[in-house]
């Protein structure tokens, strides 16, 4: 069971959180201007890397705050936790590099 360091509450069990999937997918500014495939890309297409994944979590049973997590999808190691709006830290999150 993961131990996730909430940026506010500190380390808590995974069960207190909800996973919001891949992070850093901004909502398109003008969806009407997008083609159907472009819109589908925003809606559905995901990196799903085998390696470091930057994803969003919310401390749903605690302070109810959303934040970003960089986590390895094989070792489950959490490499970084950072707030919404902040850029991902350098963790080698390029999936090509970190295929194991």
């Amino acid at each position, binding site marked *: 069971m993961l131990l996730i360091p909430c940026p*506010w*509450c*500190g380390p808590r*069990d995974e069960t*207190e959180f909800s996973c919001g999937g891949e992070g850093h997918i901004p909502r398109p500014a003008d969806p009407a201007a997008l083609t159907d495939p472009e819109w589908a890309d925003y809606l559905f297409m995901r990196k799903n890397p085998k390696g470091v994944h930057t994803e969003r979590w919310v401390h749903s049973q*605690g*302070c*109810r705050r959303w934040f970003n997590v960089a986590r390895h999808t094989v070792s489950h190691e959490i490499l970084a936790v950072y707030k919404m709006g902040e850029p991902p830290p350098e963790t080698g999150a390029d999936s090509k590099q970190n295929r194991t």
Partner: protein
Amino acid sequence: MAEAYLRLSALAHLGLEARAVADPGEAGVVLSERPGRGQIDLRGEAEDAGFLGAVEQAIGLALPLEAGTTASGGAATALWLGPNEWLVVTPPDGQGAAAEALRAALKDLWAAVTDVSDSRAVIGLSGRHARDVLMKGCSLDLHPRVFGPGRSAQSAVARALVLLHQTDEAPSYDLYVHRSFAEYLWLWLEDAAAEYGLAVVSGG
């Protein structure tokens, strides 16, 4: 305010007052319902000194800014809920005046004052095995080195979300739980406490 006799606490139907004993004796775990507290959900910018000052002015309380801490002042206690959220707990029927004072003080700021007094029931848990009972359903580290008097945390106890507040060294705890989950949590606590001996006391 309406007549108090019209009110029913979340656990009134369990007949806890009738079960209450004056002296818990050898019981390892002591439970009570602590009804009627005023509760206000307060939102505002923790970085804004103006907000903090206005709150202190209004209710005589410096809001706790560190996660998991509490602060008391005036007649109220504030529990940290999030980086911009607190639960202000007042004595019974104190929420109206406190909310008015807060609203007046914060009217020009981006803040929110919401009376949630009936949202949560409060269950008092004490006795020498109080911590053991909590550990059965709560994954927080409650060791005195980590979680002592004055600490609070939102977490889960079994399958209910709970705002936990340790009120003394004994340790004694107040468990704030959403009203509709209160009966479930009470029954769960009774079951978990069975191993240590249980006494119900009056918490009014």
